[in-house]
């Protein structure tokens, strides 16, 4: 018996040892690449172009908190609009009345298929195209509407999927207790659907936060600059990238915590099921 096992020529290294060697090679390659980058790059020039300390401070102090506030406000308003309109669209898409379904589908497919920037440009041209046309609450109204329309199309699909993910048995149990279709939707289906879609909805919020930078095409006054507009303005004046980098990091202050929250929710959601 033992003869046949050793009949095959033995390999010189065990699989464990071979894996060890292979990992060693990978580390070696990494060290060489990093070493090359450090020795070849012109560090003083890079630091000067992207991370100038004095400009970093000027950017923060001159109005970063205000720009931050505007980005958050623009996004929050659009998200609320998107949530309300998105829920209505989701319910329309699940309606038993055909024309409601068609309207919702047309809206969703149209605005999901379009680049967001086209919607923004359209809103910037509206007052020119239709003389006398004004959207209330300048500049918020325009931004909320433009960003909200794009967001609502995505949010509608998310919420529809959430409603359909509520098990059939839940609906049957509610109806068998005598609840009407509407009561079942409000008290049983929607509360569970929102719990299911909380992680994807937070992702939508992250996307909206980033898309809020597109308002630069609408044209707003200095007082109402969001992070991107603000960073670009100073970067232009100073002919240096540092302000833009600072503005970029300010976005991360919003998006990174949200991503972490999403990951937490997904983990606890997976546990609950």
């Amino acid at each position, binding site marked *: 018996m033992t003869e046949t096992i050793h009949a095959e020529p033995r390999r010189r290294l065990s699989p464990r040892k071979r894996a060890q060697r292979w990992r060693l090679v990978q580390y070696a390659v990494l060290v060489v690449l990093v070493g090359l980058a450090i020795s070849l790059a012109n560090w003083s020039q890079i630091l000067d172009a992207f991370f100038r300390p004095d400009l970093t401070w000027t950017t923060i102090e001159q109005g970063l908190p205000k720009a931050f506030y505007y980005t958050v406000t623009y996004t929050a308003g659009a998200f609320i609009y998107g949530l309300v309109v998105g829920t209505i669209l989701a319910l329309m898409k699940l309606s038993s009345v055909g024309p409601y379904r068609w309207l919702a589908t047309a809206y969703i497919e149209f605005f999901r298929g379009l680049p967001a920037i086209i919607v923004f440009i359209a809103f910037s041209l509206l007052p020119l195209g239709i003389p006398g046309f004004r959207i209330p609450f300048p500049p918020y109204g325009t931004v909320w509407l433009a960003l909200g329309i794009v967001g609502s199309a995505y949010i509608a699909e998310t919420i529809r999927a959430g409603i359909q993910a509520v098990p059939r048995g839940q609906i049957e149990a509610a109806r068998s207790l*005598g609840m009407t279709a509407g009561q079942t939707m409000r008290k049983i289906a929607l509360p569970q659907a929102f719990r299911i879609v909380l992680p994807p909805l937070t992702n939508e919020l992250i996307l909206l936060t980033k898309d809020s930078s597109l308002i630069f095409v609408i044209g707003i006054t200095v007082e109402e600059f969001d992070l991107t507009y603000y960073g670009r303005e100073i970067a232009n004046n100073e002919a240096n990238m540092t302000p833009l980098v600072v503005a970029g990091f300010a976005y991360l202050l919003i998006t990174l915590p949200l991503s972490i929250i999403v990951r937490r929710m997904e983990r606890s959601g997976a546990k609950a099921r």
Partner: protein
Amino acid sequence: MAEALVRINDLHKSFGDLHVLRGIDFEVGVREVVCVIGPSGSGKSTLLRCINLLETPESGQVFVDGEELTDPDCDIDTARRHIGMLFQSFNLFPHLTALENCMVAQTIVAGRGQSEASKVAMHNLERVGLGDKVHAYPAKLSGGQQQRVAIARALSMEPALMLFDEPTSALDPELVGDVLTVMRQLAEDGMTMLVVTHEMAFAREVADRVVFMDDGQIVEQGPPQDVIGNPRQERTRVFLKRVLDPTHVQPT
């Protein structure tokens, strides 16, 4: 038999090409406990779900308490308030506590105030032996406890009739007894019950009448000692042999 609470005339139901119910005529008397047995796919769950119109039958009539539920102009939501239903998978509302599960329909359907609804819910949760779990969410309860909350939820609407769709089939064997005990108590309290089940011992001891269904039809019905103890039809005999003596090898 006393007067009929449920009356079914020539009921037919198909799912696509599958003819699941092929002409059911059937009655359940007031305070009667009827157990429906039969092989899987025989249509017994569908029959139950046609009674409160969770499934819409193709033809035939369903009367509950004298009202025709199959009438297109029947207010089915109002009729369902008096027909409690239990499911194999419990279907408790996971976002509500045990107490809230028993209260939600009372407040929004029956129009009761919070304090009255809460009192009724508490009473029924105590009745099923869960007075100490009122604030627990379904995820924290065992299957047997969840099914008992579901019974309390149905009872809170003060139903005249209760439908049980294989209420213990999803339970671990050691939890079945708790649920069956509650159901037996309900029967003794005079509830009208229609129970689709595989629990032959329960059917034998608790049912007033046992109905054997196969292939979308009622094959045989009568007192449990006759249908289970001494079946007249060959199909009933074959089914019971398989259920009561599963290790027995039957040449087919």
